[in-house]
């Protein structure tokens, strides 16, 4: 009789275990089999875009990488996602992509060699222009003023021709009435 009781208990235990196992398996299969969903910290699209925003598509000219719709660009964005997942910094990713696909993927020419011209020439030219302007103003200031127009020296006073007419009209009326 004892054997029967034990085996009955075992049977119930086994059934329970089996039921639990089956139930767990069932629950597990209900979840999407998506690796990223089960990661602790999946790399968000925003993180990928933050890096991609500062890069350009290697193939289609002048299209930023975060908005480029081609399959190739989607692949590169996934590559960025991989690298972020591995812990690379945005700068490291950019350098890597420039190595792989050329400097044109960067939003600005890297500061080396002839590229320094891009950054230095405009401020230099503007400075030259400003100096030239300044010198000219100085030079012109030295010339004497032989100015016959009655330009008002007080900027508050109306200066337009029309305003002068108004003022003259006003004076006329005042003198008429006065």
């Amino acid at each position, binding site marked *: 009789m004892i054997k029967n009781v034990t085996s009955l208990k075992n049977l119930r235990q086994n059934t329970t275990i089996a039921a639990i196992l089956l139930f767990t398996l069932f629950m597990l299969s209900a979840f999407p089999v998506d690796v990223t969903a089960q990661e602790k910290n999946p790399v*968000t*699209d*925003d993180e990928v*875009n933050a890096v991609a925003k*500062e890069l*350009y598509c290697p193939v*289609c*000219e*002048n*299209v*930023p990488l*975060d*908005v480029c*719709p081609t399959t190739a660009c989607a692949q590169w964005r996934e590559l960025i996602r991989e690298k972020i997942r591995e812990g690379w910094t945005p700068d490291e990713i950019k350098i890597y992509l420039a190595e792989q696909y*050329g*400097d*044109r*993927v*960067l*939003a*600005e*020419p*890297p500061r080396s*060699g*002839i*590229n320094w*011209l*891009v*950054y230095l*020439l*405009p*401020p230099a*030219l*503007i400075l030259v*222009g*400003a100096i030239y*302007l300044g010198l*000219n*103003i100085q030079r*012109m*200031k030295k*010339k004497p*003023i032989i*100015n016959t127009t009655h*330009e*008002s*020296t*007080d*900027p*508050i006073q*109306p*200066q*337009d021709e*029309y*305003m002068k007419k*108004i*003022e003259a*009209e*006003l004076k006329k009326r005042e003198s008429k009435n006065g």
Partner: protein
Amino acid sequence: MIVEFGYGILIISLTLSIFAAIASVYGGIKKKPTWVESARRAMLLIFPLTTISTLVLLYLIIRGDYSVAYVYSVSSSSMPTYLKLTALWGGQAGSLLFWAWLMAIFAFAVSLRNWKRDYEFLPWVILVPSLTLAFFLSMVVFIENPFIRFWADGMGKIYETMFQPAGADLILPPDGRGLNPLLRHPGMIFHPPALYLGFVSFVIPFAFAVAALITGRTDDRWIRITRRWTLVAWLFLSIGLVLGMRWAYDVLGWGGYWGWDPVEIAALMPWLSGTALLHSVMIQEKRGMFKQWNMILTILTYDLVIYGTFLTRSGVLSSVHAFAQSAVGPLFFGFIFITLAASVGLLIYRWKDLKSEASLHSVFSRESLFLINNLLFMGILIVCFWGVNFPLLSELVSGQKVTVGPPFYLRATGPLWAALLLLMGVAPLTGWTIASAERLGRTLWKPALISLVSPIAAAISGIFIIPALLGFWLITLVILVTFFEYWRGIKARIHSTGENFFFSLWNLTAKNRRRYGGYIIHIGVVLMGIGIIGIELFQTETQGTLTPGEELRVSNYSVSYKELAEFDAPDGRNVARAVLNVSKNGKPIGELYPRRDFFYDAQQTMTIPGVRSTMEDDLYVILVDWQPISTRMATFKVYHNPLVNWLWVGSLVLIFGSLIAVWPNREE
């Protein structure tokens, strides 16, 4: 029949333009008025003729004659009629014809003006547009001919020629390829025409400048004639640029309005020198100064127009905007060479005759500030010019392709734009000729102090980005100073005429259109500045893949995915349309419908955002991707663009102000 007719008319127009050029030179040099008159009439004729040709091409497009190669490449039967109209300028050949037609309109208009007073200018003012017309028409007639057709011989070889090849017959394809989907948008109706109008209309000031140089009449006359033309040209160019920005914002799907793309910059450059010109012209009128500089600016603006057109059409630059590479490149190169050499040569030749009569007396006088204004615009122009050309230089020198992108331009031009904002606030307060730092300081300190309200308010509400605070301060300063100027004028009027406020305002503006119109333009510009600061410095975005019911959050909005439907639309596209519920601060405020259109004929897709616009901000949602068949999961990108609609409002104010400034007086 009609195809040959359209082409034949073009050949006649080309011949007329060459004749007009030669006759005007001959008549001008030999002082033979009959030749000059003959040239003028020839130029007059070109407009009706090119109109006929253009109408022929339009007719072919609308009727759907796909044996014509151009019609095939830009049109298809599934396109609505309004789009077919815009297809006229949808491809290289048609847009060159359109350019020539617009140029013919201006040549026509300038030929019709009363020439009695300026008779000596006439030969040269005919020469310039007719040479330009000859150039564009010869490109259309010989290289980019919109009237060539498809023929096939017995062996199956296909020709694309104007006239029937031996042994070949006309092919009539049942349908065309259709316009590039990116161009199928109302923006296509207005942006290219406005832009081209802006470009083309600068030929008139240029023609007068050249005429002044050739005849030696380097006094103010040429400037006085052209100042209204210049303002009109500037207005069209501004409209064209703004429409381009709006279009980009609507369809390119990246929540932006300006990408610092080389072709965009090529259109911006003449605008920069044109704006500088508008300002420095005032000094020449008021004080007779800067004649040399104004001549330089006028020539520079037109040269930049031609250069920009060259960059866009030759294939030298690569860009989403550029036309496909074409054989017109070398011809354009020749045209630039001639234009530059001739205009600069003439300028050097007449340099000494352009000396000014007056002189500058104070650093803080209005003349000085206008000079600084010009320096700043030239600075921005240098940055743009160098940035556009450097990649090509780099490729030539080292073989390395580089991109010069937004970070470069924003960093380099940002301070310059800010300085211009400051000038806009300061300049109206200075006097002509004599001014000193103290006087300026006395008038300036009150508005400067009051306008600090803006950045302080912004800082209190949590904004600490320095450029934004600076921008808000300067913008408020300009608004205050401009309103003050208006108020001063109105006060004086009321004082002298006793009119009420509104009559005063109307009459003040009407009697002094350029000045007060100019002030309105400045207000428009700073309103645009508000929009630019909002979207450039405060834009936030997020992207995510959602199942129905899930939501994305950006700023104080949340966007929840309801459903997605995929279906075929009657005009030849497959549409995937998503429905999203939008909530702000937790309260539902409506729905948005971003979608993806796939055009069967052109085999291309277009992304159309769902946008909710208020003066406070835009909520801008794009459908990035979705699972086909099940359409359960979909990826969305949401942009929050604060204040962006001030950009469009500001541009309307700018246009309004320009219309006032340009409106002719009864006396003229």
